[in-house]
């Protein structure tokens, strides 16, 4: 009996209409007030976030030497969708996904898309990288990260890692590991291509 009354007393705030309404109104006022107090200023666009190697942030900028000569800067590609793939010639999944990347590049480059294959030259070598590119007949730009500045700046932890960057320079998706199938690559790029430059 005693237990029942204790339970009954504990539940009074639920069964007694007036007390329950007081609880609900208190929740509404406190919750609504907190929502209002913690509302963020309605600016919060991506471009105000600092560059950082994760989804929703501006892609950190860099300038690297191109395999075969010349230099390339990431921010010069603003307005295009950029697929940035970090790879090494000794990494089997990187090898496995290169044909898919080349295929997608051939199909979609006309619509304003570029693939940047950044070789982690500081853990690889220029000669094996060049041999690899020739072997697979890659036609997109291949960049050489000789000092590891991009590898460090992009917190590279596993090869391959692929960053999908939109026309505004914002990282929209990061895929760690591979090999990515052609379907995975295309389904990551298509929505970004649809966006207006």
């Amino acid at each position, binding site marked *: 009996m005693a237990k029942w009354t204790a339970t009954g007393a504990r539940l009074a705030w639920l069964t007694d209409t007036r007390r329950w309404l007081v609880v609900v109104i208190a929740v509404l006022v406190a919750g609504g007030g907190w929502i209002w107090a913690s509302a963020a200023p309605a600016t919060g666009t991506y471009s105000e976030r*600092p560059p950082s190697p994760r989804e929703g942030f501006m892609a950190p900028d860099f300038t690297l030497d191109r395999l075969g000569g010349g230099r390339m800067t990431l921010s010069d590609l603003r307005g295009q969708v950029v697929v940035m793939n970090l790879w090494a010639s000794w990494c089997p999944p990187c090898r496995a996904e290169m044909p898919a990347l080349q295929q997608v590049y051939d199909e979609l480059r006309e619509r304003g898309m570029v693939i940047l294959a950044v070789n982690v030259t500081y853990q690889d070598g220029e000669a094996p990288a060049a041999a690899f590119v020739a072997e697979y007949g890659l036609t997109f730009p291949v960049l050489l990260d000789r000092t590891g500045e991009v590898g460090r700046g992009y917190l590279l932890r*596993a090869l391959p890692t692929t960053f999908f960057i939109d026309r505004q320079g914002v990282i929209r998706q990061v895929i760690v*590991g591979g090999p990515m*199938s052609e*379907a995975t690559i295309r*389904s*990551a790029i298509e929505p970004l291509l649809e966006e207006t430059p």
Partner: protein
Amino acid sequence: MFPLLQLGPLAIRLPGLFLLAGVWLGTLLVDREAPRLKLSAAAFNNLVLYGLIAGIIGARLAYASRFLDVYAENPLSLISLNPSSLSPMEGAVIGLIVAVIYGQRQRLPLWPTLDALTPALAVFALSVGVAHLSSGDAFGAPTTVPWAIELWSARRHPAQIYEILAAGAILLAVWRVRASAPFAGFLFLLWVALSAAARLFLEAFRGDSILILGGLRAAQVASLGVLLLGLILMRWRARQEG
């Protein structure tokens, strides 16, 4: 943040591993809770298993349906291990539907079933927090508080730690109340209400909120709705049983 464990050539994704550990610990708890509520543990494990499998398959199919032409050309890509080609929300809904259908066919009573699952849900919520800490997702807003952490190029609220602390406190509360719950469904609704309240409070410190209506945080508005719904259902159940 430490998202990958490198073992020689093997890069193990820690966030996924933490989630898996959460599911595993959760099913252990279900095994303990089901008999106490006079429910079959085997039926419960099947419920969780079928729900999970349907959820994963559903998440991949839902993702592929958004890119039909791509997957029509390469149907084999449907069986890829890549977790980035999954639609988590759709997967969760499909998994839930399958679990509900299975539960109905096995004639599992709704409210006691949800109560038996509650400690598992609370453990899983905790593992989500740990996974967020490991991946750096669900990160905090920039701040100058002394306990700020350096993450994503700024000193930020350790929002993932807040999340873990809240989920841990809720797990503890649910675990202590479970034997003295006044009516079937109380435990589950309590967990829902506490989790919604925690999210409502903690979302304010997040740096990745989705904003609606000129700056309101969508997750807070949704949490307030869930919290009120929880209170309404609790009253309804209390009067039913009273």
